[in-house]
């Protein structure tokens, strides 16, 4: 299977502006900004979390604790024969108890990743609340989950894929809408 790029949703400039807006929204909604902490979902959500924290610090003048969460061990498809995700380390070096946690991910799709993240977070302690910030919401939820902060809503079909590329992992900042194209010889998918 290959991916064919259809359109660019965000470039470097518009991604920076979008993150800036999300940071402002988070500051606006959380009056007690000193109580918040940011936890990004690995991989790309973790980098977005670090960026958001830096922006919030600039806006509100408060240093926000940042962590990174690996949700592999909480996935609901682990028992399926086809999946064998690599386990990465979770890095949360502060107590999340009583904090307002801003959970950050790149794309919100079925909601299953967020379900895993909620379970994982609660194993670390009892936050006073958990809010969700995503760069792209592409719809097709399979669980009753919604985001509190959305960078961009992108209606998609199930054949499409949202590719989020970040300078930290991919060398440049952009979000691209792609279409899955079956290669000759592919069966199913």
């Amino acid at each position, binding site marked *: 299977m290959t991916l064919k790029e259809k359109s660019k949703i965000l470039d470097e400039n518009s991604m920076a502006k979008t993150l800036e807006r999300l940071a402002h929204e988070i500051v606006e909604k959380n009056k007690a900004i000193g109580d918040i902490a940011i936890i990004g979902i690995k*991989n790309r959500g973790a980098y977005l979390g670090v960026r958001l924290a830096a922006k919030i610090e600039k806006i509100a003048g408060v240093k926000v604790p940042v962590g990174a969460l*690996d949700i*592999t*061990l*909480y996935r609901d498809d*682990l*028992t399926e*024969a*086809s*999946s*064998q995700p*690599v*386990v*990465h*380390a*979770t*890095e949360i070096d502060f107590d999340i108890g009583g904090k307002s946690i801003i959970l950050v991910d790149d794309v919100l799709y079925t909601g299953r990743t967020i379900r895993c993240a909620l*379970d*994982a977070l609660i*194993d*670390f*302690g009892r936050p006073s609340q958990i809010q969700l910030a995503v760069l792209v919401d592409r719809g097709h939820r399979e669980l009753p989950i919604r985001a509190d902060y959305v960078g961009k809503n992108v209606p998609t079909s199930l054949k499409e894929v949202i590719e989020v590329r970040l300078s930290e992992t991919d060398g440049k900042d952009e979000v691209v809408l792609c279409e899955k194209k079956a290669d000759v010889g592919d069966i199913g998918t």
Partner: protein
Amino acid sequence: MAEKKTVWTKKDLLGLEYLSKEEIELILYTAASFKEVTTRQIKKVPALRGKTVVNLFYEPSTRTRTSFELAAKRLSADVINIEIEASSVKKGETLIDTGRNIEALKIDIIVVRHNASGAPNILARSVKARVVNAGDGWHEHPTQALLDMLTLKSKLGRLEGLKVSIIGDIAHSRVARSNIWGLTKLGAEVTVCAPPLLIPDGIERMGVRVTTDVDEALKGADAINVLRMQFERDGALAFPSKLEYFKQYGITAERLKNCKKDIVVMHPGPINRGVEMSSEVADGKNSVILEQVTNGIAVRMAVLYLVAHAKGAE
């Protein structure tokens, strides 16, 4: 954050001899991630929820069995321990029949320790359940070597190019064999050191340097792995007395003075203080013996996770 592209495809973990460099690196990477879980307040993740692990031990073991049991429990698996005195082996049941009976109980993973080399290989061929070798005869003890390697890697940052000396009863040691396989595959330079009668014939074909002089083994080494002298078993025939052994081969603070200052001292336990090493060394600043125990749980969690989710292995 290194992305690992290797996918685990093996049904079983029988020994490091059978693994590629990349597979060993995947286990170590996964284990490093699991270390974090063992530092949490709630030391449990749901990755093996609904799976059952049997510890099938044909040889007495407290530390390895406890470590495997904790690892499985921290992954939310259910664990059953079968010890041999209490089992039907005494009534004449064969290993394969025992394995098939365990499988009929819908067990997912069998962790086996056996006094016969190769027993886990036979069991693995006979059952669909995953088989993890927890030590077989003089053959292999893969999870011990993996935890030694994880400890070295987290202490020294790398394995490639490290000079590691394994000192003690090489002939009767599955720990030595697994370490030699693993370390040489990952590019470490391995020296083995023992009294002449405890060096097996042809060991140099495994790609190691051989010496009978402990000071030579210590010189320039980044790390040493000191093995247990089993005087209660085979060692007594090969060496006259414990005191004599300590004099000639025991690791003492005096001997370490001529080594690299930050040499890492490992021991798979249980230690014979005053035989393989002095208490001063065992409890000293170079010793990582207790870190090895902690890392053992992370390594066993990684192994159980990987074999349970092996891709394409049915």
